């Protein structure tokens, strides 16, 4: 009992370490990549290549004045950033990051929470993320924030459907909700993005929308809404939203990588024991990094959608496509082609 608890805490610590560092690193990557795409230098003063820029930003956030608007709904205003961080730092508990480890004859699966409802838990927890945006928008008592919050809720609900359905399609041939089983399946067969390319694209587009990234960043479209739901937030609270956004991105990237690109596994590589765990974790992180790179690349390449276009895309294109994908996969599974 106790040793299990310790193992779980250790595993959580590992994953936490990975995911908490995403935000500062990605911040730097994003700004440099954006600068590169826009043909300008970008932050390059603090440290070599501007590598210490995130640290400087963090320091700045720490020392800035924390403003709470006078007309804000205080309690909800304080709660919103916390609610943003909560799902962000819980969803990754179901992501497996290596082969089973055997210590003292005891098998330890390298997942923080090896529960049967795996993916469902991820979806359930990530669906709670919307509350932070809505509440932030509402509590700020600012019309731009409110509009941002309303947009966020509508957008997240709409794209969650397509996302969930594309994830479901992956589960069909595997016959399990556990991500570890999905990884094992991909090890035994082929990475899922090959047979389920349609589902992968639906997942990709929906995850852009779920993370409120360009081209779907309507809840915080600066040309229309200043900064959307977090207009009134400053200092550490703003940093919390920032952190949550990048952590969510990383978590979705981890899910995507696990569902479609073999997770921690590499084709043809079967290493077990501690070395396997390390290689697995490294592989997973590497894959996540590539995925995040795509996020950044897309963000600085595509223009923003109009709100009605966004809704139309979600309901009239992605949802039917994901249903089609589900049916196709179901038929293929029944026919034994998968």
């Amino acid at each position, binding site marked *: 009992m106790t040793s299990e608890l310790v193992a779980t805490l250790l595993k959580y610590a590992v994953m936490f370490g990975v995911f908490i560092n995403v935000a500062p690193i990605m911040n730097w990557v994003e700004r440099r990549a954006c600068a590169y795409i826009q043909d300008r230098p970008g932050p390059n003063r603090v440290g070599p290549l501007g590598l210490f820029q995130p640290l400087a930003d963090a320091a700045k956030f720490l020392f800035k004045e924390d403003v709470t608007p006078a007309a804000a*709904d205080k309690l*909800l205003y304080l*709660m919103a950033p916390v609610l943003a961080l909560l799902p962000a730092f819980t969803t990754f508990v179901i992501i497996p990051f290596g082969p089973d480890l055997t210590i003292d004859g005891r098998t330890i699966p390298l997942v923080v929470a090896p*529960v*049967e*409802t795996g993916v*469902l*838990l991820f*979806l*359930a*927890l990530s*669906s*709670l993320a*919307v*509350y932070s945006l*809505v*509440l932030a*928008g*509402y509590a700020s008592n600012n019309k731009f924030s*409110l509009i941002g*919050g*309303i947009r966020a*809720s*509508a957008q*997240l*609900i709409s794209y*969650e459907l397509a996302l*969930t359905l594309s994830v479901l399609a992956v589960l069909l041939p595997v016959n399990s*909700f556990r991500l570890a089983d999905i990884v094992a399946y991909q090890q035994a067969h082929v990475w899922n993005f090959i047979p389920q390319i349609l589902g992968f694209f639906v997942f990709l587009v929906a995850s852009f929308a779920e993370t409120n990234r360009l081209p779907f960043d309507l809840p915080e479209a600066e040309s229309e809404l200043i900064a959307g739901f977090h207009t009134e937030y400053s200092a550490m609270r703003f940093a919390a939203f920032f952190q949550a956004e990048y952590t969510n991105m990383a978590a979705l990237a981890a899910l995507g990588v696990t569902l479609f690109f073999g997770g921690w596994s590499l084709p043809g590589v079967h290493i077990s024991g501690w070395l396997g765990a390390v290689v697995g974790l490294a592989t997973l992180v590497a894959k996540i990094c590539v995925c995040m790179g795509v996020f950044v690349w897309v963000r600085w390449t595509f223009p923003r959608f109009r709100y009605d276009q966004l809704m139309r895309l979600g309901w009239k294109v992605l949802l039917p496509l994901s249903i089609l994908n589900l049916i196709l996969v179901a038929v293929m599974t029944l026919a034994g082609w998968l």
Partner: protein
Amino acid sequence: METLIFLIFAALAVASSLVVVIHRSPVYATMSLVVTLFSVAVLFVLLGAPFLGALQILIYAGAIVVLFLFVIMLLNLQKEGESAGRRRGQIWVAIPGALIFIGMVGLVFWRAGAPDLQPLTPELVSLKGLATALFSDYLLPFEIVGLLLLVAVIGATVAARRAPDAAEGTGLPPREDFVAEDTARKEARS
């Protein structure tokens, strides 16, 4: 351990549900409902229904309640004002009624004693059993529920459509008429 978890989340559920009912602001009420739903989801897991727990959060907390919040913001609902005097009576009947109800149920359980829970069997927890039952014995209800959802989607779309008078041929009376009819009736009565 289990008892402790139960007690914590039961208390949380009761407290947050009280907030749902008592708090004047719809947003706070809604947020407390999320807490209640979450606690109940934990209890589901405790009872050996992890799938339902996840669904509870995914569907209820993740979608239905967000819909509530969305509508609250869309309509920009404020706190309820002072309630009109003659409606007070309702409260003074409802609360004792509820207390009697709880007393009654409590008395029944007190009399019946408290048998321990059945031990958790793997069959009960397994998703496969649930799914098999759902898609064989309960296939017809399942399909009917699917149909119901479809009907609800269509109904909601039609009902929430902006300005019925702009959409010709819906068979709905134009809004002005509706209001005018109402006023006319009130005048006729007074």
